[in-house]
């Protein structure tokens, strides 16, 4: 009898819980929602210098931070960053955890089918980073038969694997949660090279010239970096607005300044998303 009462007391509490659960979100227009909230949620990974990284003062810095500050000004909203490992970023976007993804991501055929890319912001062609002073790797094909690292579920990894298949003896690849871990392993000598886009590895080699060097030329197919949104109809108004802001920033010269600041060089990028080659 008393035992039954104990159950009842506890279970009536349990039944009350679902009432507190959040109600299902409505598919409302994304631009209206973001404007009303005054903030746009952007998902990214903070292990992709010089786009997104944690600087030596522990602050989130990079081209993305600067560029989104400008985008936010154009649109009159704040930017809320959500940072998580890259292999969690695209699932998070699909689940609706953020309004769009910074990254940026390489514009590929497979991704263009699934996501909406915004106006390209940089070149993404893949090249190799090696240890400074490693004479065994002078050109990209020297990685034949060797172990190369890249980020898990990245376009750069896919390109390295495709390139490896064209080499005699192929290559082995190792997949990291983030590129930073791959760089650390390259420095430790566990792998001979890291495959990543040229702007990224150029920045790493320039920041730590005693440790790393870029293997020229780039081996990958010419490609571009762009920010990503979904193809959900309710998201398009917001993505149109961000796209317009990016194009405006490109045309009034602010983008060139940002590229110079973070890459030490500038790229010509088309306003429209080009047909991907990879």
């Amino acid at each position: 009898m008393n035992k039954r009462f104990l159950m009842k007391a506890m279970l009536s509490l349990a039944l009350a819980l679902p009432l507190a659960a959040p109600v299902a979100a409505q598919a409302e227009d994304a631009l209206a929602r973001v404007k009303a909230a005054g903030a746009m949620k952007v998902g990214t990974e903070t292990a992709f210098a010089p786009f997104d990284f944690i600087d030596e003062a522990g602050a989130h810095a990079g081209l993305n931070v600067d560029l989104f500050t400008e985008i936010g000004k154009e649109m009159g909203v704040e930017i809320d960053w959500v940072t998580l490992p890259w292999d969690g970023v695209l699932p998070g976007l699909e689940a609706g955890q953020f309004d769009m993804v910074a990254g940026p991501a390489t514009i590929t055929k497979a991704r263009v089918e699934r996501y909406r890319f915004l106006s390209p912001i940089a070149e993404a062609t893949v090249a190799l980073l090696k240890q400074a002073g490693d004479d065994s790797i002078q050109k990209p094909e020297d990685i034949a038969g060797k172990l190369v690292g890249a980020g898990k579920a990245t376009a750069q990894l896919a390109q390295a694997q495709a390139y490896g298949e064209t080499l005699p003896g192929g290559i082995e690849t190792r997949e990291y949660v983030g590129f930073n871990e791959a760089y650390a392993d390259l420095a430790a000598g566990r792998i001979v090279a890291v495959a990543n886009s040229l702007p990224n590895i150029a920045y790493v080699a320039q920041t730590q010239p005693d440790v790393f060097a870029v293997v020229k030329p780039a081996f990958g197919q010419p490609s571009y970096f762009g920010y990503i949104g979904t193809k959900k109809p309710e998201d398009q108004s917001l993505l149109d607005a961000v796209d317009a802001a990016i194009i405006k920033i490109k045309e009034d010269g602010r983008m060139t300044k940002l590229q110079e600041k973070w890459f030490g060089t500038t790229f010509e990028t088309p306003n429209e998303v080009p047909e991907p080659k990879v």
Partner: protein
Amino acid sequence: MTLDFALMADKMPEILSGLWVTIWTWLVATILGAGLGFLVASARRYGPAPLDWLLKLYVEVLRGTPFLVQLFLLYFGGPFVGLRLEPIPAGLIGLTIYASAYFSEIFRAGFEAVPKGHVEAAQCVGLSRGQILRRILLPEMTMLVLPQCVNMAIILIKETAILSIITVPEMTGVISAIGSQQYAFVEAMFLLAIFYWVLVETCGYLGRLAEARLSKFRFAVP
């Protein structure tokens, strides 16, 4: 939302190889960890006091920090002190050391639970220390520590998932990578949940079976 597991079915060979890595790294780390844990517990019981203190520190440090941090320290910190381990050896060593701390506590409690009278009686009839360990302590302890060892083994199955972070190609790493390639994120997570669940329940079942078996022979120990 629809789930499409056909996307994953094409990748079965890769998935099975990941499952195999999970199983064998788990088995090796559990067995070595239990062995090392037994050594630590024995050394703390029979060794000199300073050794006991040192090993107590070893145990408490390992139990007071996340396995992930220990693994990072070993794998990414190691090369800075000249210790450059490949992912699988690093994972095995890390997991074994981590497990040894918990196993040693299980065995320590096991040693203490054996009635003092039994040990004293054995000493009286002139058994050596090794004989006492082999004939008295171990058989009597086994029943006591077995459920906890099974419990620890189950915890270790789940800890192997963390090895993917240092690029060990075990199940979590393999399946989540396939999920990303196929854009089948949710399917991948479901598959992982089911695989681990089955592994854990199987391990628990085998443990209960072993307990039942052993309790039959409890009084037949020579």
